[in-house]
């Protein structure tokens, strides 16, 4: 009876005090909630995100099979992507012939046809399109993660220790961003030798400033939080505060950015190969395949460059979709 009466007051118990701290009361310095992104839920609910994840998984799987083929362990596709088959400029089978051909190859065990045709050197387009992720994905993923590691480290240092040296570092990062991306990558790859390793280094250099900037901004926001001060107060040295406490809390923007970066890295890798400043033929690589087919497309040989292009378009779109989904949740 008395409990409902507002006029009746009693001495507060600890339980009452607990009730006073409501979720909406932000206590300065203590992060109220961790950024969590429920990938499984997103996968179930959002079609676009699901599509992106499936594309990424497929290309990753193809990349793994590509390396298995490279070391002659197992070949998923019918032909060696690096060796000419002897059948030059074969047109791919028409739509209506496909069921019959499938029956013959899968059930009767005949010699497999060239599903996507062959280019003018006799290389099987189907096998090469499927084997290409081993080049493209490896370059893009390694480059993106490399630039993330370097960029996060530098960004952490630049955001945590604010002095003349890190100011200078930021000016250099600004300078790097003023360079035209494509031309810089072309110069780096062409002048230091056209191979996969140099492409990875060039892409990593080009994408590092983005991560420096992202991490630095986040670290500067985190460094004034209460937990950082508490970590210092209990006697942690500065470096351990930076790497042990601030770093794990400021990784999220970089992790969200990485999917988009991998997609752009695939575009840049294939673009470099297309203009002749990327990997050397006959490496199975989508941009290079498009370039090899480009000379003949004017003569009506469409199959050499259409299939790798579809592959790039799908893959990069998949990465962009996942990147967009993650970014949306993060905001």
């Amino acid at each position, binding site marked *: 009876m008395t409990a409902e009466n507002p006029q009746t007051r009693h001495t507060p118990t600890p339980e009452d005090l607990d009730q006073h701290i409501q979720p909406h009361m932000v206590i300065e310095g203590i992060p109220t909630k961790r950024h969590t992104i429920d990938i499984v839920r997103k996968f179930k609910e959002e079609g676009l995100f699901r599509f992106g994840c499936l594309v990424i998984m497929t290309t990753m799987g193809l990349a793994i099979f590509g390396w298995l083929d490279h070391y002659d362990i197992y070949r998923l596709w019918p032909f060696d992507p690096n060796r000419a088959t002897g059948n030059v400029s074969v047109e791919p089978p028409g739509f209506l012939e496909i069921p019959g051909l499938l029956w013959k190859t899968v059930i009767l065990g005949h010699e497999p046809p060239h599903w996507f045709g062959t280019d003018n050197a006799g290389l099987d387009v189907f096998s090469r399109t499927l084997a290409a992720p081993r080049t493209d994905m490896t370059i893009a993923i390694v480059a993106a993660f490399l630039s993330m590691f370097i960029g996060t480290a530098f960004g952490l240092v630049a955001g945590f220790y604010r002095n003349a040296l890190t100011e200078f570092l930021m000016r250099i990062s600004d300078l790097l961003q003023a360079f*035209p991306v494509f031309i810089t990558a072309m110069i780096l790859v062409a002048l230091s030798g056209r191979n996969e390793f140099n492409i990875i280094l060039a892409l990593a250099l080009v994408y590092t400033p983005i991560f420096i900037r992202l991490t630095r901004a986040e670290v500067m926001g985190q460094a004034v939080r209460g937990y950082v001060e508490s970590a210092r107060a209990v006697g942690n040295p500065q470096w351990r505060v930076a790497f042990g406490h601030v770093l794990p809390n400021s990784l999220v923007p970089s992790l969200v950015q990485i999917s988009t970066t991998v997609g752009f890295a695939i575009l840049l890798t294939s673009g470099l190969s297309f203009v002749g400043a990327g990997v050397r033929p006959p490496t199975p690589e989508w941009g290079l395949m498009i370039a090899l087919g480009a000379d003949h497309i004017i003569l009506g040989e469409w199959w050499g460059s259409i299939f790798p292009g579809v592959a790039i378009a799908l893959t990069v*779109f998949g990465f962009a979709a996942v990147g967009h989904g993650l970014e949306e949740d993060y905001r």
Partner: protein
Amino acid sequence: MVGRFIAKRVFLAIFQLFGITIAVFFGIRALPADPVARLVGINASPEAVQQARESLGLHETKLQQLFNYLGVWSTSGKPGIFQGDLGVSWVTNSRVWDECIRFLPVTLEFITYALIIAFIIAVPLGMSSATKPGGAADRFTFVWGLFAGSQPEFWWGLMFVFFFFFQLNQWDLPHAPAPLGRLTPLTTEPPPITGFILVDSLLRWDFKVLFEAAHHLMLPTFTLVFVVSGAITKMVRQNMVRVVQSDYILYARSAGLSRRKVALYALRASMAPAMTLTAIIYGFLLGGAVPVELIYSLGGIGQYSIRSILQFDYPAIQATVLVIAMVSLIIYLVIDILHAVIDPRITF
């Protein structure tokens, strides 16, 4: 006020260009490439190699080479950057500045048209998708922005060539021209006035060249519009959504202004970020449109840069990077000034 802002920005830009000059200079010399061997060939005698090194000025120390390039304390006796000379190409032996001036307008022209068209498409599309969230235009804009932004533009360029040139030609329909440059190879290009071929032919009142050039520029421009318009539309939409929810739009509505007028106010406020994005894309395309130039063999600065890079032509590489950085800095400056004109909230 504006004058002081511009002066400050120009000063900063010169500083940045100086930094880029030095970074590129030492950057390309730090890479393990041997330009002399590329120029004289593998079988050249050591004397020939030495002679080539000396004639290119590569026998000096790196720092002295930089001074020669800049034109201070020079030992080569040739003018440097400070005298307004970007050097002589090692391959073609002509002045790099002249070559850049010849090739730059080609790229500028088709990028400019593409971005203008993309902007014209993006603004109404972004507006209509922002005013009706969840509608057909909105969903289209969303998917398009995500899709077009992640497409290999060179591949779409090839597809357009295949369809609009080859396939339409096969079917005896009116078709796009062969991707062999800015004009048909048989037409001699008139001497440039501005370098923009459409503008030139208009100035000359030469409609034959005008239509031919427009016909040839159609596909490259369309390729870029295709790739670029999605991102700009998304940007217009995002800002428009934010602006429509703001207080001054509510006030304008409650004051009884017509929907048209309110939409125009909102548009003006949401233009600024979209214009910044357009400027950034412009700067990106200056160097990034290389593959598209290559497909249509337009012969712009991008194609020039890839040629000089593959031939290890150091003066030309330095000059192209510098010229592209310079043009993008100028464009950023122009956009910042335009912002102040459009958006009265911005003060310098």
